């Protein structure tokens, strides 16, 4: 479970995220959406323990990220945007490194299965330096799934992936959620994640504008019809004037 309570993050004088609160329960797949500069990556990086929150409480699998970062991170996997890999390590060695970091035993068969799933098996000994953007993304995804995290976070995971890889990633994410993982992913490709996510957190300028299932958010936006797409919801929430009831409910 990922719990974000009253989270704020300031860089010098600029408030990147302000009093954000939401929860991702086991089995849920929550889409973190918002325009550029809304604070999505800051939120993901703070939950991952890379950035220190200015205020608020962040916890992963019951462990406070600030108080007990190692335990929180042990339950977590983050796939960053445009994953930076170690240039002179092969794909397989990245999995090996992940196994070492998370102290996994007998991980090889799962590693091979993941490489098969993401069509990387025949490139397992290729150096990261020689991989395309999509393949680097897939390598990072395989590394993230290797230790079967209780909380999975993906920052713009679809960028650079081919349609087959996107489909495989969807199915892997659904499998992880079905296995009890809490999944939080950020993306600008609203049409792509609309049917994947069970709920959404919509940010604008670091503030929570709406949160909940699509139906819950729609119900707070009377101007939209009951069949309004995520894209329509997004524009109404981020460019419209009214704060939604759903945001108020989520904040509470």
């Amino acid at each position, binding site marked *: 479970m990922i719990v974000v309570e009253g989270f704020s993050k300031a860089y010098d004088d600029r408030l990147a995220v302000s009093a954000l609160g939401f929860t991702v329960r086991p089995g849920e797949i929550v889409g973190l959406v918002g325009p550029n500069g809304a604070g999505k990556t800051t939120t993901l990086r703070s939950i991952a323990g890379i950035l220190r929150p200015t205020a608020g409480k962040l916890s992963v699998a019951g462990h406070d990220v600030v108080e007990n970062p*190692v*335990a929180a991170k*042990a339950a977590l996997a983050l796939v960053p945007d445009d994953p*930076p890999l170690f240039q*002179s390590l092969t794909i397989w060695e990245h999995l090996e490194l992940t196994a070492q970091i998370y102290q996994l035993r007998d991980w090889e068969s799962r590693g091979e299965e993941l490489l098969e799933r993401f069509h990387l098996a025949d490139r397992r000994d290729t150096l990261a330096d020689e991989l395309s953007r999509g393949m680097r993304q897939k390598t990072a995804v395989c590394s993230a799934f290797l230790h079967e995290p209780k909380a999975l976070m993906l920052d713009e995971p679809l960028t650079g992936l081919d349609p087959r890889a996107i489909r495989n990633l969807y199915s892997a994410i659904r499998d992880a959620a079905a296995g009890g993982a809490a999944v939080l992913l950020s993306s600008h490709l609203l049409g792509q994640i609309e049917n994947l996510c069970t709920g959404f957190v919509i940010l604008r300028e670091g503030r929570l504008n709406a949160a909940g299932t699509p139906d819950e958010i729609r119900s707070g936006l009377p101007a939209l019809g009951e069949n309004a797409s995520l894209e329509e919801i997004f524009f109404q929430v981020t460019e419209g004037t009214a704060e939604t009831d759903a945001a108020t409910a989520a904040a509470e």
Partner: protein
Amino acid sequence: MSMGGRLLHPGLVWLLRRTPRTWWRSIRRRFNGWKGGLLALFCVFFALMMLAPNVIESLLDRGADDGELAARARDFGPLIMLSMTAMSLLAPAQRRGGLYFKPPEIGLLFPAPISRRQLLIYHVLSRAQIQVLSAAFMTLVIIRHAPTWYGCVLGILLALLFLQMLSQTVALVTAAAGLRLARPVRFLVFALVLAALFVGGSSAVAQLQVNNGPLAAMSALVAHPVVQIVTLPFLPFASTFAATSILEALLWSAVSCAVLASLLAIVMKLDVAYEEAALAVSRDVRRKLERMRSGGGAMAMMGPSSAKFSVPHFPEFGGAGPIAWRQTVEIVRNARAVMTSMLLLLLMPAIMGGSVFFASDGSGNRAQILGRVLIPMALMFSVVWTQNISFDFRRDLDRIAYLRSLPISSLAVAAGQILPASVLLAAMQFVTVGAVIVLTGLLPLPVVPALFPLLLPFAFAVFALDNMLFLLFPHRLDPDDAANVGFMGRMMLTMSLKFAGLFVMLAIAGGIGAGLGFLAGRSIVVGVLVAVLLLVAMDVVLTFLVARTYDAFDPGRDVPA
């Protein structure tokens, strides 16, 4: 799982053990293919030429020299280390305050279940691995100046480790103090070092005034009590280097190790949340290194100026005009880096000229002697210096595909790419050489304005050769690759070819010019005019060659990763 409780996380141990293998892979990949083979040959040749004599000489018995070498190393070593520390304070990472982590370290290790302290130890050890490589290379370079080989090996290694840890400690202190305080802290340390050198400098100046030469001045500087106090922490390392017996080397090494251990203890004690500062620093450094990687040289680290000067569009000239305009805008927008580059170009011959001036015995016309030394020196420096003002194909490595898509002939692209930087280099040479002439009175002043048209075809030839060689042997500097030995070989290869090309061109132009000038009644004007015209004609041929090389360049295959 108590991974957070161990001194070093098993995953990090795995990564550290894997590092030498990754370096080896990196080297192997760089020497692939016939071009790689040629580079490998040059690397070996360069190593033999530069390093073998050092090693051989150090192995020969030098007897009485040892005492003098030891004394010099002990006297000047601490000051050299202090200067290196002061320089490292100007490094980009220190400028922001914070440790520099590579992108994969941030992306993969920061979110991993690794404690802050474990990551810090990894940072110290992984950077120490690089220092071991650097120490091995430096040892081979300066072993002949050390009294003993074991003192040299130990002294350099320990000194580099100390400098690295000192820089990490400063980074952590500034991270603890907060990014806002980073600049004042850095400034304060730098000011203290400068103040000490200034105080000690008075005795050095006194030595210069009585005409005792630079060595006596330096000795007076390092003997000053203030300088001795400031450089005291560096003394054990210099003394290890200067050791004349195994026992002495071991004793000083033990003292040095104690200093290192104390520094490590301070680093470990400073359990500050450095991650965020590291993130900011790494992003900042990365941006600058990316600019450098794309071919801007060291000056590209500075980045573009904030002022957006506009440049009027040039006539089209078959497409060469807009291409040249774009490069001119780049030059103008990077005025700060260009000016710094120019200042350094003036400074380097000035320093060398200064030492020649002070070393001379005072007989003859010192100023004219200086001028004769400085002008060729300034021109040679400017030829080597072009990497730092590479507003041409070298900066456009990632834009070659775009350039190829333009409806402009390759000849026009080549001319447009090379001309603006050539004009800039000619202007720099003009200022440097002109200044030398004015200051030394080597030539009559009316000659100065005529210099620019003489220098321009020469500068164009330098850039044309640079670009042709770059398109033949494209490369990028990878600042994260500690085993970037191919870079040195490539640099030596291209530099040698460039100088050979320039020599042939100047010999042809100069020879024919001198011959025709002689036939025209020993007319210098005719000789120079003929030489310049010939150089211009050769520039045209070179431009065609660059265009051909650019045509043959395959962005899908030849752009290095």
